[in-house]
């Protein structure tokens, strides 16, 4: 136990030194279960992961020869979505080459602000070839280029009380991850895929990559990050209220 904490602390300290971040702390609370036995099981699994596994192990990275065909599911073009307001907004942004796309970063941060894609590209980039694993059972290998989420959080000055990062998209998805996954070196805001700009079906111009969890957590068309002190289930649009596990590290 002591060993794990020491190793985790060392890893996070290393990361903090690189990103100038305050030490990350493990979550203090478990997601609510609303009396549902299945959600209690989810919490047992999540807690076991956080207690038994080192928090920042890197997922396996592959080579270019391993890249595979890649299905796009869920929303594959917000301009075609039923929500005409979001569809019009997305179409207008797309016509302008996403130059006016804004990622808003707010919540428990010292300097809330927005980033354009060009501003995100000015931050140090990371390219990784990883396995996307869908909860349905399929998998695909893709190359992702983007800025580590930790660097973005560093740029806005994440407060010491922060424990979770909530995120949402133009097509109205909302989800969240804990700080251990948010500060994971392979958790990136990707604007490139397979050496090109991120294509529309895969989330243009910006998507999240949470490599330590199933694909559903890596939402596309990302436009908002909210740093949270307390767990937030995302309301009626969130995974728990819709009968899904919140943590998808399994």
């Amino acid at each position: 136990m002591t060993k794990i904490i020491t190793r985790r602390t060392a890893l996070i300290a290393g990361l903090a030194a690189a990103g100038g971040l305050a030490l990350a702390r493990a979550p203090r609370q478990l997601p609510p279960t609303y009396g549902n036995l299945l959600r209690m099981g989810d919490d047992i699994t999540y807690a076991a992961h956080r207690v038994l596994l080192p928090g920042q192990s890197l997922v396996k990275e592959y080579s270019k020869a391993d890249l595979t065909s890649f299905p796009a599911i869920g929303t594959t073009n917000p301009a075609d979505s039923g929500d005409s307001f979001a569809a019009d907004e997305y179409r207008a942004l797309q016509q302008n080459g996403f130059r006016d796309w804004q990622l808003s970063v707010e919540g428990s941060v010292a300097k809330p602000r927005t980033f354009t894609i060009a501003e995100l590209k000015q931050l140090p980039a990371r390219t990784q070839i990883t396995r996307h694993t869908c909860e349905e059972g399929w998998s695909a290998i893709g190359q992702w280029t983007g800025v580590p989420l930790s660097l973005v959080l560093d740029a806005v000055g994440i407060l010491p009380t922060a424990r979770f990062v909530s995120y949402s998209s133009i097509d109205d998805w909302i989800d969240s991850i804990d700080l251990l996954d948010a500060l994971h070196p392979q958790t990136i805001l990707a604007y490139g895929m397979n050496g090109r700009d991120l294509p529309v079906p895969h989330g243009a111009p910006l998507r999240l990559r949470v490599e330590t969890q199933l694909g559903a957590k890596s939402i596309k068309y990302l436009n908002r990050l909210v740093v949270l002190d307390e767990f937030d289930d995302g309301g009626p649009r969130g995974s728990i209220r819709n009968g899904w596990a919140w943590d998808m590290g399994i």
Partner: protein
Amino acid sequence: MSEPRQQAHARWVRVTHWLLAVSIFTLFVSGFVILMAHPRLYWGVAGNDLMPALLELPISPDYAKVSWADSAPMFDDASGPVSASRTYDAFNQNGWARSLHFLFAWWLVLVVAFYWLTGAVSGHLHSHIWPGLRRLSPQQLWRDLVDRFQQRAPAPPGPHHYGLLQKVAYSMVIFVLIPLQVLTGLTMSPRIAAALPWLLQVFGGFQSARTLHFAGFALLLLFVLVHIIMVIRSGLLRQLRAMTIGERHD
């Protein structure tokens, strides 16, 4: 109850038998429902609808309706990997099925751990379950098989009467199949595979682990079916009495 009757099965064996039966049954059902969401099996690291399958099972009510649009090569090589957008979402009940599966996986691991421990300490595993490697000659196994089919009066319930093939079957389930199911299951978890990368190496990748997990299920299902047939053949009521209240009528 004038005279104490001999117990066919020890109480802890009877309790673990039914706890195990409940978890195996629930894992069968929930695992099958999970597979229905993507009833294709692959070998290696990646596999999806845009790649050839090793085996496609006709177990989804509407998988044939899944269709794809905007298929496009992801690189300059037109014969290389492609991206395509899914236009029909097939049956998917993974919200409850996945969480139920993992909840009962915990249950299974706890029951089997208790069974191993108590079985080792009490000598039950050594004297009644483990066949002994020296007895495992083809001639012995053949003789046991022939005996089993020629038997007029089946042996009474209880571990003292277990035949050689019976012991081999029980040992395979307890020492090989269930541990392999747990390990291949863990391999499919992104966060666990990150922390324990040897899992991916041992099983040859995520999709290989998934296919082996299915093969393990098929073998366990075969075991359960043969087990039930043998119980019926040797006297269903007598066997049920022995495995519940523990009574033995000779």
